[in-house]
């Protein structure tokens, strides 16, 4: 044993450039790179992303390429069950349920995304300012939010639509009247937590302005929960629209959203179930997918799960 280590030449001191010691071996990954890597590990979430992409693609392309329009009446062929000619059957005016489903998808998804984005804008600004300024400003701003939140949101939406009409944009705006409150609360919570972090203090000592601190330091670090909330607001908006339309308070015919289609399909449930089945299924699928993606994002972003 000892003889094999006896090579005298090996026992010489080695001159080292000890500054080399500071090198970093691994590849550079940003925070988002790291988060998306973890997200990709979540098979269910990835599947839902795929599902959602398929739904969106169908919503975009089917109405273009279909030989039927969403409002093409065919009174000779009303209430036909699914067949080779009409994949999802027809409704009581002979309209092709398949194409209507995808037109409905466009509308439902648009409502969901636009409403959520408007909520995001208002919520981030409101919650950001309240959280960062603190004190009186915070109190006043959040009390306003609390009061608004106390009003039953369906009532607000219904009133809004009665006053302004049952159009697509009135419905979207109606939902944002109180929809931003949740986002504002989340953002405010994040800001409260972040504003006393040392990197924010450091920015202050460097002389950073209020805007710079809020938009360059605080909000980017709150993006995680913001993104998750955004992803979970969309299904909420879609559902609200579906619900309202289901009550008859939604969009006017022949505009089809999944909600209005479900509304029309309910009375026919006993004899022509496909008319309710298809829109309802897609509402569920979309909400499910978005919820799973939202959860997946939340897990991927959670700093505690980081190395």
């Amino acid at each position, binding site marked *: 044993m000892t003889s094999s280590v006896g090579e005298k030449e090996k026992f010489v001191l080695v001159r080292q450039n000890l500054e080399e010691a*500071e090198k970093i071996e691994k590849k550079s990954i*940003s925070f988002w790179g790291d988060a998306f890597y973890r997200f990709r590990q979540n098979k269910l979430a990835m599947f839902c992303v795929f599902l959602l992409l398929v739904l969106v693609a169908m919503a975009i392309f089917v109405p273009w390429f279909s030989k039927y329009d969403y409002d093409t009446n065919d009174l000779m062929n009303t209430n036909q069950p699914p067949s080779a000619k009409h994949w999802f059957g027809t409704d009581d005016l002979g309209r092709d349920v398949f194409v209507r489903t995808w037109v409905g998808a466009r509308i439902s998804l648009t409502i969901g995304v636009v409403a959520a984005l408007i909520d995001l804008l208002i919520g981030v600004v409101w919650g950001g300012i309240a959280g960062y300024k603190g004190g009186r400003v915070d109190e006043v701003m959040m009390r306003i939010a609390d009061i608004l939140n106390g009003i039953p949101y369906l009532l607000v939406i219904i009133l809004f639509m009665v006053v302004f009409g049952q159009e697509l944009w009135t419905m979207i705006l109606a939902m944002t009247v109180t929809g931003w409150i949740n986002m504002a609360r989340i953002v405010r919570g994040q800001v409260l937590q972040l504003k006393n972090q*040392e990197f924010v203090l*450091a920015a202050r000592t*460097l002389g950073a302005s209020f805007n710079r601190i809020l938009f360059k330091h605080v909000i980017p670090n709150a993006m995680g929960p913001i993104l998750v909330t955004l992803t979970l607001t969309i299904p909420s908006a879609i559902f609200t629209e579906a619900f309202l339309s289901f009550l008859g308070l939604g969009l006017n015919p022949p505009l089809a959203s999944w909600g209005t289609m479900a509304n029309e399909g309910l009375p026919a449930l006993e004899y022509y179930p496909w008319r309710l089945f298809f829109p309802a299924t897609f509402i569920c699928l979309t909400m499910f997918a978005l919820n799973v993606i939202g959860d997946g994002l939340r897990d991927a972003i959670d700093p505690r799960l980081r190395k």
Partner: protein
Amino acid sequence: MAEKLVEVKHLKKYFNAGKPNMVKAIDDVSFDIYKGETLGLVGESGCGKSTTGRTIIRLYNATGGQVLYQGKDVHRIKSKKELKELNRKMQMIFQDPYASLNPRMKVVDIIAEGMDIHGLVKNKTERMEKVVELLETVGLNEEHANRYPHEFSGGQRQRIGIARALAVNPEFVIADEPISALDVSIQAQVVNLMKRLQKEKGLTYLFIAHDLSMVKYISDRIGVMYFGKLVELAPSDDLYKHPLHPYTKSLLSAIPLPDPDYERSRKRIPYDPSVHQYTDQDRPEMREVAPGHFVYCSEREFEQYKKEYENR
């Protein structure tokens, strides 16, 4: 005669002033910091040393008293321009290397932020050049510029924090427990770096820490705080060899040293505040017991300490 850079006069910082849960974090503290020196500020949790640092740099507003920087009252500056100037001259290094860098920003942007705010560079190339120069000054290198904080170790992050503070060419740097969160051998790296930078750039430091051996090594003078008050202020060697205030003695007697023989014979002296027996007549304040050596005491104690110092 050394020039005074910072003068703290009867500084008070009370949290929740007037309410039942009021905390007197800084309770009438006065001291000066001379240009080019390192003043150490030590004490245990709740003594107010960190609050003092943050109040000096205006992260907190003072409840009372003044902080003068080159003669100007820091807290009374109204003009934005003057405030910006002050931000450039006074900088801070923070304790937690994991929380003091924005995790979403690249190192180059973190270091350059001060330069961006104050318009110290003309274009992107110059900006990058300056950043690389700073990185090399703190012992890192160019390839680190495009990385994110989480890719670095604690010691490296602390160095990035130092580079960030240096980017605006400050005169005065407050180091708030800059090494407490680091491993022992990394502490030595950072302290050596800070000493070297002080020599090269003529910096003045306020070094706030609770590790007394390290503070003694880097500081010229040391102030000891206890519950919001400064109880002793003296040149480093003098403080360690001839502590006068009973709290200082207690603190020093509690420090374990890496020397088994010393440890076997060390006796800890507990501190009991009632040993002072201050009456309403006593007006304890900082009195100069020996040249440069100040102790917070009453008249009575002053005589005692003088005798004690003479007989050392």
